[in-house]
């Protein structure tokens, strides 16, 4: 797809979801859309470092948590939630640089292991630091709904906020694909030595990508906290959250513009909507369905859902090439 058609697709999605947010006042559905958008952004931020740069992160919850905790702390101490957004993003980016700098010199799986370790350390630290609410987490005060307090009566407004962030993430990815950095990353992923030999600074490229993705994940964490109004270590920093983020990226398709969004759609439809509708029976049917789908995708289409579109296009092209004119 060209940047132009990506832009067109994004425009359609944004307009459709904005119309839904403004016109359809079903809180349950809007809540699902909100969670879906947050995971689409998280999946995209993961896709930058793990898809385009090929460095698999299993600790992305750390950055999500940075944003969520920034919002919780600003909320509890009566700071403006708008200041929490850049604060969380900065802390996340700084942490990404601190984790990435020593690791990106190494090859292989060291980076993945380091991301798990650092996220685990952060979770344990938060569990034991009084100022960070320990294991109890924070319940944020409910404020008068307004744009200034970033709290709304209507779910639609949360969806609009998430939609803005989603658009930023998508435009960022479309730009990245065409940018010098994007080509560097693909070169590094294909062969780091060869890339370095033609003057690509692999470490700088990966660090920049990782820090930008971390900041993006933190912004998603902040919005999530503003909507949920409860932030605890188990729900923002724990390994299952990191895995959910990575799954969204893998199911949707690595290094594609629309993969994370597709992954998030499946995640919300099966794990969340399925959970709400089927979970009451208590047989874990929804989780079985989601697990089964992951198995099918991983074994049948390792390039994810976005890869299916590519195959269809190739198939059509091949057929038309075979057909005599």
């Amino acid at each position, binding site marked *: 797809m060209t940047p132009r058609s990506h832009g067109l697709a994004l425009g359609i999605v944004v307009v459709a979801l904005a119309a839904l947010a403004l016109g359809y006042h*079903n*809180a*349950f559905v809007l*809540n*699902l859309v909100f*969670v879906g958008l947050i995971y689409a952004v998280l999946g995209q931020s993961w896709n930058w470092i793990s898809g385009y740069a090929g460095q698999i992160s299993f600790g992305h919850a750390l950055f999500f948590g940075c944003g969520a905790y920034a919002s919780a702390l600003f909320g509890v101490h009566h700071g403006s939630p708008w200041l929490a957004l850049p604060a969380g993003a900065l802390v996340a980016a700084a942490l990404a640089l601190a984790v990435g700098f020593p690791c990106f010199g190494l090859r292989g799986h060291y980076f993945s292991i380091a991301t798990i370790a650092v996220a685990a350390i952060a979770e*344990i630290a938060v*569990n*034991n630091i009084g100022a960070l609410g*320990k*294991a*109890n*987490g924070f*319940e944020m005060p*409910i404020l008068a709904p307004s744009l200034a307090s970033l709290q709304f*009566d209507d*779910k639609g407004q949360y969806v609009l906020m998430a939609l803005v962030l989603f658009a930023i993430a998508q435009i960022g990815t479309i730009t990245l694909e065409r940018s010098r950095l994007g080509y560097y990353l693909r070169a590094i992923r294909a062969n780091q030595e060869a890339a370095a030999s033609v003057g690509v600074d692999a470490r700088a490229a990966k660090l920049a990508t990782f820090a930008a993705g971390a900041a993006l994940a933190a912004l998603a964490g902040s919005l*999530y906290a503003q*909507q*949920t*109004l*409860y932030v*605890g270590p*188990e*729900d923002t920093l724990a390994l299952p959250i990191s895995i959910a983020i990575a799954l969204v990226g893998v199911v949707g398709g690595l290094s594609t513009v629309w993969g994370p969004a597709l992954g998030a759609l499946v995640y919300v439809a099966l794990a*969340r909507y399925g*959970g*709400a509708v089927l*979970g*009451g*029976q*208590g047989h*874990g049917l*929804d*989780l079985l369905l989601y697990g089964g789908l992951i198995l099918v995708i991983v074994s049948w289409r390792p390039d994810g859902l976005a890869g299916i579109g590519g195959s269809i296009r190739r198939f059509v092209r091949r057929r038309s090439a075979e057909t005599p004119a």
Partner: protein
Amino acid sequence: MNRTLAVGAMLAIVLALVGGSAAPIRGAEPAEIVVGSILPLTGGLATTGQGLKLAQELARDLINGRQPYPLLMAGKDGLPNLGHAKLKIIFADSQGSPDQAKTVAEQLITQDHVVALLGTYASATTATASQVAERYGIPFVNPDSSSPTLHTRGFKTFFRTTPHDATFSENLFEFMSDVLKKQKKPPVHKLAIVYENTLFGTGAADAEEAIAKRDSYDVALRLPYGANSSELQSEVQKIKAAGADVIFQSSYLNDALLFMKTYKQQSVSPQAIIAQDAGFIDPNFVKNLGKDADYIFTRDVFSLNLKAKNKAVPAINELFKARSPGGNNLDGNTARDFTAVFVLADAIDRARSTKPEEIIKALAATNIKGSDTIMPWRGIKFDEHGQNTLGNGLVEQIQNGVYETVWPFDVATKAAIWPMPPWDKR
């Protein structure tokens, strides 16, 4: 044709007026009263959540049935003040996740139009689900979350029937001084607080430390540890070195077992080990340790082994056991969830209405005697924060492998054995 219609209409109006004056709410009587229940039905807490669902279903069936029990609202064929309308519970799965709990709360309120919510066991999910209920003005009855902050949020729709962690910890200290006074033993001074370092243990330890400081005990050691530790030698050495009279301990099962084995190995013998339920009331605790489990004190919220205030307890337990796939007895969690359904049904019945604001008013006016429930509580009566003020915990001691209730004294089955004998003299 027109004439018949007019007569019919007039007759209908007259009937409506007569019916209306005889019983003002007749016309509004629903056949079914729908409440929602949010529980962790899948995920890490699923085993507990499934048990809670069974307990709530049993309560619902007793309320809707005709078999009388000495329980408030049981066997009246539904809600008598609402024309014997039947109680219906729609269950939803929180997956143990705060934002999923919020999502399903929205769904129950806006899609299923429930008149009240029950749930949700884990404190974090109760925090978010009850926010939703507060925003929609739907009453929220919480049977089983023990975080002390839940009722202090200024909500008008939140009612918690269970005592919370601060009360439970308070009970443990009351028990300690009561027993020492009763048995004419010298008071203790030096305490050690040992706890697993996540939500449960940290909350309990904070509450214990606050009470210890207020009552001027000497907290010689405050020791957090990870519940999945594979060995605890150095932790136990620290505890031994602190030389506390009493160890206050909050542990899950595996770490509790490991601690007990290491205490024995290093012959750590304080006067008493007082535990916050969890691992210490797990059926596998005694199974694994045998005689070494003896003399441990633990808090609990319910016990089958107590001088029962309510004669229905054994019969209800048999009903529950028959429904439970594992043949489980009622325990502290299931008994509390069972009871909360009655509290809610009683309020809706007294409200004589399914309007949420009327149910909230009725809940606020709740006044149930302890003997009308299966709980060992003095009763159920909410303060202005919606916290039940008449609830209390129990203290049990393992004696010969059996959990005997030792406090409060009026429901006790055995006297407390204090101090525990040293390991080499057992």
